């Protein structure tokens, strides 16, 4: 089985989607001729043609609005927003139009757009190339929010997203675009929008998604050396949320640490914590702990201090065990 990084996995998914369905269109800034600033769409225009894979003007509202027009017409547009930090000009289109088309039309106008966008920090990009905006979209009814954690999940989840008749915000953890490598099947396959147990453990559950999953694995190794066995849940699908997988783990271990890069206040971790408190309270041996970015814009020089890393996760797990 080939080993791919996330970029290759995304490229493979798009290639499959374009090849399998004439209604799939891929577009965005520098997506066509250049192949994408991260090379995610490399080679696709040459292979599938300018009609199917094309460049757009630098206008996120236009990219998303165009995608909406195509989706309600019955096509499957897969626009790219080059950095999630720049998605906000399209926010009105996403929240007021894309998310509500199905609901306001009583199902007459499904709007199956899949917006791909790199997110997260750790690439020395500062606050306009490092943001994690998933909470805004998770909070908007009618949007699905998907976050792969590695090449295998990236390809499978993206193919599911493209064929999903609902709008999907597909956030790609750019810090590990190349660093994360995994065996990825050559052929097309889909993964469900559900959480997965990344590692089994006994004493504490780490709930996370995206690049932070890799920090969690490192933390779990450190914990194991200290006789603490951590279970890791990869959320993958923020909306729809597979809360049962998370809750089953919490009932088993009684201790939870939620990890995300995005800022702490009203981050998605708060939702997970609330659900755990609602549905697994009587299994908790310690308070729910969140390890997150800080309530600051994403810093440039001190970005490694900002990011939740293995040591912070380790320490948080320790406090739940020592409670």
């Amino acid at each position, binding site marked *: 089985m080939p080993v791919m990084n996330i970029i290759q996995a995304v490229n493979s998914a798009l290639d499959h989607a374009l090849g399998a369905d004439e209604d799939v269109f891929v577009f965005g800034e520098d997506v066509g001729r250049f192949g994408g600033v991260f090379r995610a769409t490399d080679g696709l225009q040459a292979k599938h043609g300018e009609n199917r894979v094309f460049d757009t003007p630098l206008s996120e509202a236009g990219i998303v609005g165009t995608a909406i027009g195509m989706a309600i017409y019955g096509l499957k547009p897969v626009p790219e927003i080059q950095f999630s930090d720049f998605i906000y000009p399209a926010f009105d289109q996403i929240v007021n139009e894309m998310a509500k088309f199905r609901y306001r039309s009583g199902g007459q106008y499904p709007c199956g757009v899949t917006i791909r966008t790199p997110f997260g920090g750790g690439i020395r990009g500062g606050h306009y190339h490092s943001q994690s905006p998933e909470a805004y979209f998770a909070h908007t009814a009618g949007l699905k929010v998907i976050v792969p954690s590695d090449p295998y999940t990236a390809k499978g989840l993206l193919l599911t997203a493209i064929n999903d008749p609902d709008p999907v915000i597909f956030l790609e953890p750019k810090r590990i675009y190349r660093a994360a490598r995994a065996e990825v099947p050559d052929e097309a396959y889909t993964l469900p929008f559900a959480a997965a147990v990344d590692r089994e453990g*006994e*004493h504490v559950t780490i709930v996370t998604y995206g690049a932070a999953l890799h920090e969690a694995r490192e933390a779990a190794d450190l914990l194991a050396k*200290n*006789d*603490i*066995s951590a279970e890791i849940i990869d959320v993958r699908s923020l909306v729809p949320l597979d809360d049962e997988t998370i809750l089953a783990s919490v009932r088993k271990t*009684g201790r939870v640490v939620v990890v995300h890069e995005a800022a702490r206040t009203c981050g998605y971790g708060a939702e997970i914590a609330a659900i755990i408190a609602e549905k697994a*309270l*009587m*299994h*908790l*041996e*310690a308070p729910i702990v969140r390890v997150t970015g800080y309530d600051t814009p994403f810093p440039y020089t001190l970005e490694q201090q900002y990011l939740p890393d293995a040591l912070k996760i380790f320490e948080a797990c320790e406090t739940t*065990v*020592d*409670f």
Partner: protein
Amino acid sequence: MAFEFKLPDIGEGVVEGEIVSWKVALGDDVAEDQPLVEVMTDKATVEIPSPRAGKVTALNGAEGDVVEVGAVLVVLEEEGGAQAPKAAPKAEAKEAPAPEAAAAPAAAPTPAPKAAPAVKHTAPTARKPGDKVLATPATRRVSRELGIELSDVPGTGPSGRITKADVIAFSEGRRSPVASGGGTGMPFTHTPVPPGSGEEHRVKVRGLRRKISEAMTRSSMSIPHFSYVDEVDMTELVTMRKRVNQSLVARGDSKVSYLPFIMKACWIAFDDHPEVNALYDATTEEVVYKHYFNCGLATDTPAGLYVSVIRDVPNKSIVQLGQDIRDVTGRVRAGKATREDLSDGTFTITSIGNIGGLFATPIINYPEVAILGVNKIEQRPVVRNGEVVVRYMTNLSPSFDHRVVDGANAARWVNRVKELLENPGLLMATL
């Protein structure tokens, strides 16, 4: 009223001490805890504080005299008539091991599996009436499932928090038969004494006394104890130790007591019976085998009964152990014990017979699995090769947790200990 202060038993089979120096003179007014005398025993020179306030009316013995444990050292005339005795000097038989001081929050060095650092040795913290019951949601669920009122359960967690283990132990305690004289939360009823038949007075059980009481109750209620007794011929060890101590003293070192030898013998015997050096985790129903040996020593202190912990017995020499025993119990008695001095024990030894008695049935230091009672060494007639001879004999009276240790294995372990003590050369050779 005259109070007789007797030379207290400081454990470890000490039977006598030498008066090194008096700290008070006849006629002095002494305060509670004021140092009275410096006494040298086999193992240490200790400063002994006064348990009461009063005026010194008698000093029994001159500097240099050897006094027996239990002999009256000082007589004090107390002020103001009968006072409620505070932490009375432990002249009573000390057949029970003491819990560790609650002052040291004994977090496990590494968290144990599943119930994480649940295996703590902290004594239950006194909770005052009206205090909020502290318990995590998971513990509350367990108590609900077991039908237990949390406010009835003593808590051993931080700030007196009730842990899941506490709830389960309490639940098991309620299900086991009531020990004689033991309380299980049932109301205290008695026939009031008719007026004129005699006096009584009540003393509130609080502080360390209360902690001890709770620990004893918890241990005896949750652990199915069985006792075992055997006699050991200590003659060769007595001889050997005397010679060893002569050499040590000549080199300027301190003497060693019998305890280091006994500890080493126990350790070697654990080899064949590791279940004796273990803890029992009731919440997960696991026996936690310890691959190291920190030996608890029941220590009588002015404040009360503590368990001093001598760490890492296997890797220290007899002389080193002797030194450690002096150091640790010294700190414990002085109220200067560190966390390490009072925690992480895996097996406990208690000296019982200094005052008297042949053997006893000590109560295990929860959640350990066994405790060894060491009794007095004295000369007794025994039969050897058909002849009656006089040998230095002692009784070993361990108690075991019958969930973990079977009678046969207990006997075999004791046999091994006995074999090593009766033949100290073998003990040395097996170290």
